[in-house]
Each structure stands twice: as structure tokens, then as C-alpha cells.
């Protein structure tokens, strides 16, 4: 059981490392440190660095969280966590119902 948890945690950390690296590159490298270099590229009416700093970074943040959600769903599925979660949820609702009656 514990070794299963360990593997789950290792894969979780791997997902975090990848997503947070993208987060770091977008926030600090593209939008702050190399913003002037990126500005030489144009994206319609925007300079790329300016667009990253004021628009693109925020879009990437939203996408990152939803990708994380998908990856974690897959991981939870692999380790059968969602069944436990459903069981727990049912248990909780029963308890709540019992509370209401009391």
C-alpha cells in the first residue's frame, strides 16, 4: 500500500515539476527578463514581450491549471483513487443525512 502511495507521489511531483517549469518560463523569463528581446517579434498589433506580460501569461496560467486537473484525474484513475473518493463522499453524505435527522 505504502509503495503505491510512494509511486503516486513521485508521479505527482513529476507533473508539478513540468507544469511549474512552464509557469516559471512564462512568468519570469518571457514576461520579465527577456521581454525586450521578445518585443522585436510582432503579433498583429502587439509586441510579443508586451503581450506575454499583459495577456499571454494569464491565459497560460488558466490552461496550466486545467491541464493539471486532467493529468491528476488520469493519475488518480491509475491508482483507483476516485473510487475511494466516491466511497468517502457517499459516507460523508450518509453522515450528513444522519446529522440532519438528529
Amino acid at each position: 500500500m505504502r509503495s503505491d502511495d510512494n509511486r503516486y507521489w513521485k508521479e505527482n511531483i513529476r507533473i508539478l515539476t513540468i507544469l511549474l517549469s512552464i509557469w516559471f518560463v512564462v512568468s519570469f523569463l518571457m514576461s520579465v527578463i527577456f521581454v525586450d528581446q521578445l518585443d522585436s517579434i510582432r503579433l498583429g498589433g502587439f509586441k510579443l514581450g508586451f503581450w506575454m506580460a499583459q495577456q499571454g501569461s494569464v491565459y497560460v496560467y488558466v490552461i496550466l491549471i486545467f491541464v493539471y486537473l486532467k493529468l491528476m484525474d488520469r493519475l488518480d484513475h491509475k491508482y483507483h483513487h476516485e473510487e475511494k473518493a466516491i466511497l468517502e463522499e457517499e459516507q460523508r453524505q450518509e453522515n450528513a443525512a444522519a446529522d440532519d435527522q438528529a
Partner: protein
Amino acid sequence: MSLQVWTYLCVGLSFILYIAIAVKSRASSTREFYIAGAHVPPVANGLATAADWMSAASFISMAGIVSYMGRDGAVYLMGWTGGYVLLALMIAPYLRDFGKFTVPDFIGDRYYSQFARMVAVVCAIFVSFTYVAGQMRGVGVVFSRFLEVDIDMGVFIGMGIVFFYAVLGGMKGITYTQVAQYCVLIFAYMVPAVFISIMMTGQAIPQLGFGGQLTDAYGGGYLLDRLDGLHEELGFAAYTSGVRSTLDVLCITAALIMGTAGLPHVIIRFFTVPSVRAARKSAGYALLFIAILYTTAPAIAAFARTNLINTVNNAEYISMPAWFRTWENTNLISFTDKNGDGLIQYVADPDVNELVVDRDIIVLANPEIAQLPNWVIALVAAGGLAAALSTAAGLLLVISTAISHDLLKRNLMPDITEKQELLYARIAIFFAVCVAGYFGIRPPGFVAQVVAFAFGLAASSFFPAIVLGIFSIRMNKEGAVSGMITGIAFTAIYIVYFKFINPALDNADHWWFGISPEGIGAVGMLLNFLVAVLVCRFTDSPPRDVQDMVLDIRVPGKPD
């Protein structure tokens, strides 16, 4: 209908809605009062978190700040959204699995120390009061500008409304009113933005109009190129270029991001959902709903800046449109004809410049500048109030739980019954509303300065303590406590020195490595991590049951 009637109608209807929701969602247990019984569906929690997060400052001031800072304004846009990625990936799911009520709960239990709990309580209360004072002031200001009631009267009305649903419903009442408040505030923000975008660029989506071409009436060409050109003509730095040093921009962004991820009133929202998965999901929804406003704000900033310069520069003072006079009366615009030529000179050089424009005007006067109908202007008033009230309520709840739960139940009076604890929670929120109202009516002169404090403190205290508590089993109380104290002390001393003791030196020449007090929280955070890890190496491992707890919260779906 006149503007006045429309405004009373919009504000009145929105208030009735909030009260109706409050009556429907009374809290009957501490679990409901603190975390809405952990029954909130992820989308609803996303909406509530977004309203909780976006304050009077986000709604009224942010577009204006960006408008004056140009590209550097990105520190706020990224700083106040990027933290949600950290929340979703590194904090929310695990704290949800931990399954208690508050942030000090986690700090106190994870570091098996009442002292750590008390440090967290003091930080939570300080950060929340700092923040809430500004909200109450915002309520008063909106009332006075749009409804022509006294600022103090406005604060009282706002206090009454918040008091009603916060005391009655606790987190449950607050959550569902926040859902309604998000809808009101986002509608009020988007309508003028869409109108202005169509007017200036022919694009209905402001985010696209931002990079689009101006219509012929505005002279064509890309909006941002035109704005850069206008700025150069008047002696300002180009709008799309930065003025601040790269290191400072980096530090401010980091401090705001880590501060966001460490703010108790945001974290507490993720305790209200039923499962770990729901916590992840609601963080995604929250950021999505926040991003709608945060990506629109820089577009409004650029539209309004262009419009403003076009309208006022070198124009005759007597031929100014009506909104100019309206806002002149409130002192948000002031004009002094220095060279006596009857024309308005709006330039970078302070000796020649004749026009001072308050940054709040960018959002508040936007609908009037764009000549939108009265109901849109009235909507902006209701939206500003929704933004201020929703944030105030979330903060007041943190203060109340910190006192009734963390201070009394978990520390001083562990034997009180649930009924008593609930009563204390209601009394605490009552006093918190009164103190917040007092700050709203008599704002301490330092409110503006202490905002940096709130984020700096959250970044340099909570964020490292929580992250280490989850990701390092070995982290012990000695490490965490000395880390928090180092982080807080360093950040506080730096800010107090430049903001209160020696404000004359508060400029880039005197800052350490050019890092402003706004950004110093990032350094405080690094110090916290460093000290915590070092001290931990030379002290004992945490007890077995604490290590087991950490292993438990890492894996979802385990019984508590």
C-alpha cells in the same frame, strides 16, 4: 430615467438580492459557519473565490494603475493571477485533504506547536485587517460619488449589509452572496469595455481590440503603436516599454504571486468544497473567472489612455465634454492653466503639465467618456460595491475564525461547546465589522502603504511554511518557526524603514539592489526557506503521527 434613479435602482436591487440569499442560507453549525459545510460545488466555489479575490482595488483602480504604468503594470496582472497556479498545484488540494477549517489550523497541527499557531493567527488577523480597511473605504467612495450620500453614511450602509449576511450565514451566506456578486461585478466591468472596444477598434472582444487597428474616426493604425507615438510626443516613456529595473519587476511580481498563494482568505475558500478533486477544479474555475477581468483591464487601460490624451491634449478648456466637469467637481481631475492660453497641456514635464488625472477615473468615468447610456453608469456603481463587499466579507470571516476557532477553541478555551464556539464566531465577526467600519470612516493615513505589507507578509510567512509542510516530511517546528520569524522580521523591517521611518529615502537609489518595499517580500520568502531548511537539518525530526499526517494529505481519498 435620470442617472440618479438608475443608480438607486441597480444598487437597491443588488442589495435586496444579497439579503435574500443571506436569509436562505443561515448557518446552524460551526462547520457551516466556517466552511459552508464543505458542500460548495466547484463552479460555485470558483465564482465565489473570484469575487472574494477581486476587491475594490481590482475593480476600480487596477485598469487605471496599468494605464499609468504601461508595460510595468504587468506586475499586478501577473502578480495577482500567477499565484493561483501555485495554489492549485501546491496548496489547495493538500489542505483540502487535511480537512480542517483554517490556515492556522494547518500550521498549528503540522508543526505541533501552539506558538506556530499563534504566529499564524496574528499574521492572518493583521493581513486581513489591512486589506479590509481599504474595502470599506471603497464602499464609502462609491456611495459618495454615485449616490451623493456622505462617505460615512455609505460606510454605515455597507457595514449593515455585510453584517447581515456574514453574521447570519457565516461562510455559507458569504459564499452564495459572492456568487451573485461575481455576476454583478463582471457584467458591470465588461459592458463598458465591450462598448469602448467596438467604438475605438470595431472589435467586440476587448482582448482582441487591444491589439487591433483603430477605426477611421480615430485615425486608423494599430492602437498600441498610436499610443506609443502619443506618449513620445508628450515626453512620456513609450507605453509598451518598461521603466522599472528588471530585478525590481521580478521581485514585485514574485512577492505578489507568493503572497496571493499565502493569503488566508483565499486559501480558506478551498476548504469549502467536498473533495480534493473539487479543490483542484475550483482553483481552475476561479482563475478562469478572474482572468476575464484581468485580461480586460489592460485593454481598458490602453483604450482609456488613448482616449484621454486625444480628448484633452491641446484642446480648449471651455470645450471639454460634460464628464470632464463632473469629475472636476469630485477633484479627480484638476486643471491649472499655467501659461494662461486656455488650452490644456498634458505632458510628462511637471513644470509645463497643467492637468492632473486620478487613476481611478479610468474605470469610473469610462462609460461617460464613451457616452454610454445611464444604466451602464449605474451598473458600474453596483459592480464597484459588489467587488468591495464580497472581498470585505471574506476577510471578516478569516478574522472571526482566527479568533473563535484558532485562538479560543484550539488554544485558550478548548472545552467550549460547538454552540458556544458558533456564538463567539458571530460576536467576533460583529466586532470585526465595527473595526473595519471605523477604519473605513477614519482611514489611517498608512492604508495605501500597508498593502505592500499584506502581500509581503503573506509571501514571507505563510507561503514557505505551508509548502514545506506539505512537500517536506522532515520539516519540523524549529525550522518552520524560525523560518517564519526570519521572513516576517526581515520583510517588516525593510518596509517599515522605507515607508514610515525614512520615507524620504524611498527611491531606487537607496533600496537594496534596487528592490522596492513592494518587492522585498520575495527576498523575505527566500530567507524563510533558507533558514527553515538550515535549522531543520540540525534539529529533531517531527513526531511519527505528524509524518503520517503529511503522508496522508499527499494522497487523496484517504480517511482523515
